[in-house]
């Protein structure tokens, strides 16, 4: 009997701890949302983060986009040529990229490339007592350190997503048109005819990427702030950033797709 009670007590303790963490995370998320003013009051810090997170992620995004676009074109051509519709290769590549792959892949790559560095930076600041020192000087770390990263991530991911889509489509063009012989005019014309700016680009790409960018940046900052102040603690926090961000992006992608593109809508 006591064994059962102990197990129940352990379960209760775990649930309470998880709820406390969730509550703390929600409070922090809200606090960072309220710090939207950093765009105006901390412009230099936000700009620095945009440069750090965006510019340094550019190479990995461009290279990945080129290969993903090329592979998509190959697969699309292979499948569509069976039913004599290889002319639609371009539009299939473009819609796949814009509506699904670009926002998701960019967010996951961003978590690995920039999210981990955000977590490590904040985690090391915590272990070096720099955040506590800031508090002691009367400076709010949420406003000075967390919010600029959070909001910069919310801008950088959509920008990278746009670049990713453009490069991906061009990668698809190289394979479909230059290699496999699809007519260039047909390739571009079908894209022009079938891609809707409001529906596909704004809702499919932009809205998703803003949500993903904010979600990944929040997790990165939160994990850094929650990291145990030891080398091992920071290492674990960076790992958690990648795992949680990737899973959250995939889950959010399903929710947003269902909300925006389900047949009932």
């Amino acid at each position: 009997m006591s064994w059962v009670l102990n197990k129940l007590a352990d379960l209760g303790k775990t649930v309470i701890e998880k709820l406390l963490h969730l509550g703390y995370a929600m409070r922090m998320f809200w606090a960072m949302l309220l710090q939207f003013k950093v765009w105006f009051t901390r412009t230099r810090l936000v700009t620095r983060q945009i440069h750090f997170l965006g510019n340094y992620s550019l190479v990995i995004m461009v290279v990945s986009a080129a290969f993903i676009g090329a592979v998509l074109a190959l697969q699309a051509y292979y499948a569509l040529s069976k039913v004599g519709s290889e002319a639609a290769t371009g539009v299939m590549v473009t819609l796949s990229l814009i509506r699904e792959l670009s926002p998701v892949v960019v967010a996951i790559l961003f978590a690995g490339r920039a999210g981990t560095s955000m977590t490590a930076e904040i985690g090391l600041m915590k272990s070096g007592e720099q955040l506590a020192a800031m508090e002691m000087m009367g400076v709010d770390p949420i406003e000075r350190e967390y919010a600029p990263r959070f909001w910069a991530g919310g801008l950088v991911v959509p920008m990278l997503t746009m670049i990713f889509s453009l490069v991906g489509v061009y990668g698809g063009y190289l394979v479909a048109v230059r290699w496999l012989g699809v007519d260039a005019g047909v390739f571009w014309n079908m894209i022009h005819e079938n891609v809707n700016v409001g529906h596909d680009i704004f809702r499919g790409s932009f809205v998703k990427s803003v949500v993903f960018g904010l979600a990944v940046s929040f997790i990165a900052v939160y994990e850094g702030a929650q990291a145990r102040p030891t080398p091992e603690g920071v290492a674990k926090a960076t790992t958690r950033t990648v795992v949680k961000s990737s899973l959250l992006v995939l889950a959010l992608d399903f929710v947003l797709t269902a909300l925006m593109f389900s047949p009932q809508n």
Partner: protein
Amino acid sequence: MINLEHVSFRYPHSAPIVRDVGLSVNKGQVVAVMGPSGCGKTTLLRIVAGLLQPYEGRVQLFGQVIPYEQATKLRELRTKMGMLFQFGALFTDMSVFDNVAFPLRETTQLNERQINECVMQKLTAVGLADAAQKMPAEISGGMARRVALARAIAQNPQIMLFDEPFTGLDPIAMDTIASLIREQTDALNAASIVVSHDVQETFSISDYIYVMHQSGIVAHGTPSELTHHTDPFIRRFIHGREDTLVHGGHV
């Protein structure tokens, strides 16, 4: 200026780290909290700084209870406090000058000329005016501690907290830091708390000393009173004498 009454602290599901501690510090006083490693000194300092909230007891600064739940008020209160962290906690991506200027740029309306003047004055006070443009990675541990001290006093605080200011320093640097703590406390007429286990340097600058052991205060008095204390633990801690070693509960 600083008043603690029956303060206790523990992390959830663990034993108390600070138990029923009371102390007070007046203007112009350097009060030391001493004791062996792990006795709760740093936790106590963090409680005074408002970084940790006690689960029992009351902490008053400037005659008011620390407003733990009101972030803005707490931040306001902290602009009148300065804290020297154990390893300096300098911002590694900023120069020495920018580190000292940081609290002034963030919390005051001073213009760059006034900030420049103030920073150079503080750096001169700690003897590091020449190192203003260096990065923290380019200076020694002792210099870093002095830069951190300059930063801690940049806002002319009325309460100063020093967490193990002598740890890892050579005797000359230790002496320099000790003199600076005393001088700055006197110059600003501040209330200072020094947490340390370095007996010689701490005794030389303190007006009053509290000795902690196993989470609580076991003795207090002026340096001379503690030097002549008869308790075996205190004697051993202060003098490090073999004849006061405790064996099986007997001295």
